[in-house]
């Protein structure tokens, strides 16, 4: 049975390095998770909100705690064992959903940090990366795999800058697979004279047209061509038939305005978007851009208001919350 427990101020619920299968939820009071930043050695304080679980990762993953859970003022918590937590979560899968979101954010952040320290792991932009994968397989005479990568490229980047090359190579891969088979055949030089188009249908896993256009625009955005990206997203938002990508595009339009430093337009766009679609998952992010825009315009009071709002929302990811905390600190400074 989950057990209610009370802790006095200054008590420590668990210490970094402890191994335990206990998971807690804060009912009332104030608790801080104190840990050390791996890179800088600085102490990090993460305050637990009422109703929030803590100790989940280390208990589920069966590894030592990574922080001290320090009670700041008299607190009431409920303690679960892992099986008890699993039972609760199975009955209320929203809990799992929320945690998956938080965890996947944390994992992405960790990935990025690790890649940042690894020369060999240099992340390419997705467009180049996918094309390179195709080239790699083609060079290794693994034609089926090369064909897959190039077809994907052509699907996602129908007007990509490597489009002509990708078409050529895809065709070569297909032809060589038939003529020679995997692992055989002459080497293919970097340049080819074939101009025929590859138009064989994909294996029934095509993206909708809106999705394709969306990814094309995303790729333009990632090349920091914000004005062009904005045009692309506007076309999808106005004419798109796929509702999911239409709304995604609407969100991206706001980001484009922000990146173009058109803060007034950014605020106006996101405000309209939020009114029309108050339930979009990107809501906290949208509010963040609005706050940032106000800050850029020098309206710190409004900016602060938006940041506070995000802090009180349940849907905000850990990465965003950190950004917001930093922004609040900057305002106070």
């Amino acid at each position, binding site marked *: 049975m989950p057990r209610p427990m009370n802790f006095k101020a200054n008590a420590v619920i668990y210490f970094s390095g402890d191994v335990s299968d206990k998971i807690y939820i804060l009912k009332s009071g104030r608790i801080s998770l104190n840990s050390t930043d*791996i*890179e800088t*050695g600085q102490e990090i304080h993460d305050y637990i909100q009422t109703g929030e679980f803590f100790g*989940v*990762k*280390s208990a*589920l*993953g069966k*590894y030592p705690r*990574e922080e001290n859970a320090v009670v700041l003022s008299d607190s009431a918590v409920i303690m679960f064992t892992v099986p008890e937590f*699993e039972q609760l*979560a*199975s*009955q209320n*899968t929203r809990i*799992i*959903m929320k*945690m*998956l*979101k938080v*965890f*996947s954010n*944390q*994992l*992405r952040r*960790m*990935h990025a*940090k*690790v890649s940042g*320290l*690894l*020369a*060999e*792991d240099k992340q*390419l932009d*997705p*467009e*180049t*990366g*996918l094309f*390179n*994968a195709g080239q*790699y397989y083609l060079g*290794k005479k693994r034609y*089926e*795999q090369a064909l*897959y*990568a190039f077809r*994907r490229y052509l699907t*996602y980047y129908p007007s990509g800058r490597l489009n002509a090359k990708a078409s050529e190579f895809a065709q070569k891969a297909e032809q060589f697979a038939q003529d020679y088979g*995997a692992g055989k055949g002459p080497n293919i030089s970097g340049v080819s004279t074939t101009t025929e188009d590859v138009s064989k249908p994909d294996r029934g896993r095509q993206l909708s047209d809106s999705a394709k256009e969306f*990814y094309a625009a995303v790729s333009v955005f990632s090349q920091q061509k914000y004005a062009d990206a904005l045009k692309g997203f506007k076309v999808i938002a106005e004419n798109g038939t796929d509702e999911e990508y239409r709304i995604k595009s609407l969100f991206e339009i706001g980001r484009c305005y922000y990146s173009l430093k058109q803060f007034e337009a950014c605020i106006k766009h996101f405000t309209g978007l939020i009114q029309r679609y108050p339930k979009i998952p990107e809501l906290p992010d949208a509010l963040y851009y609005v706050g940032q825009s106000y800050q850029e315009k020098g309206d710190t009071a409004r900016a602060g208001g938006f940041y506070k709002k995000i802090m009180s929302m349940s849907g905000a990811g850990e990465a965003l919350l950190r950004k917001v905390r930093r922004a609040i600190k900057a305002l106070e400074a």
Partner: protein
Amino acid sequence: MEMNLQAFERFAVSYPADEIIFCEYEPGDAFYLIQQGRVQISKIMGDIEKTIDVLQPGEIFGEMAILEEAPRSATAITVGPVKCLEFNRANFEILMRGNPAIALKLLKLFTKRIYDQRRRFMILTLDDVQARVADVFLMLNEGQLEPQEETDERVFKTTAEDIAHWAGLSPEETRHVLNHFVSQRRLEVMTDKIVLKNINEFVRFVSSRRKKR
């Protein structure tokens, strides 16, 4: 918790041998649970394809796509014929409600991945290359299922290339450090394994280097 997967048969997809399920850098919108066969997860680095893992039935891959449509960080290729259940955001809700056990399994998978990445990051933040290599051994030791706690000696079935990969160093640099350790009689390097004479001495060595930062 038992996993009842019969209800999910309609999400099953089959692949022939040696087929790409997804390629690194393509946008991801689905994740997979292997039912039959094995799947190789690999990444192209320069002119080599590095195998990160070979997954078995019951294992999940592509899980990063559940909540974000970010590009795939690795390629998934079938080793032999494979049957998977394919989940995307649309049917994920159904999965969650109908089979929380899979959702919990995913949650646990994330905790493990985060821990592994964090541990790796700790290695990479060490400036001293010797401490980095030593810390890789500590990490490998933590991951061994049967702790050999009676003695200070540890045996690792690993190679200089693998250690170089984890330490973020070039193979030459890594071999240089390993040879240095060998000359100090702290290590023995053999063709298929490396023997570490005193794990606790390495623990002290690494922690002293970490504090100095």
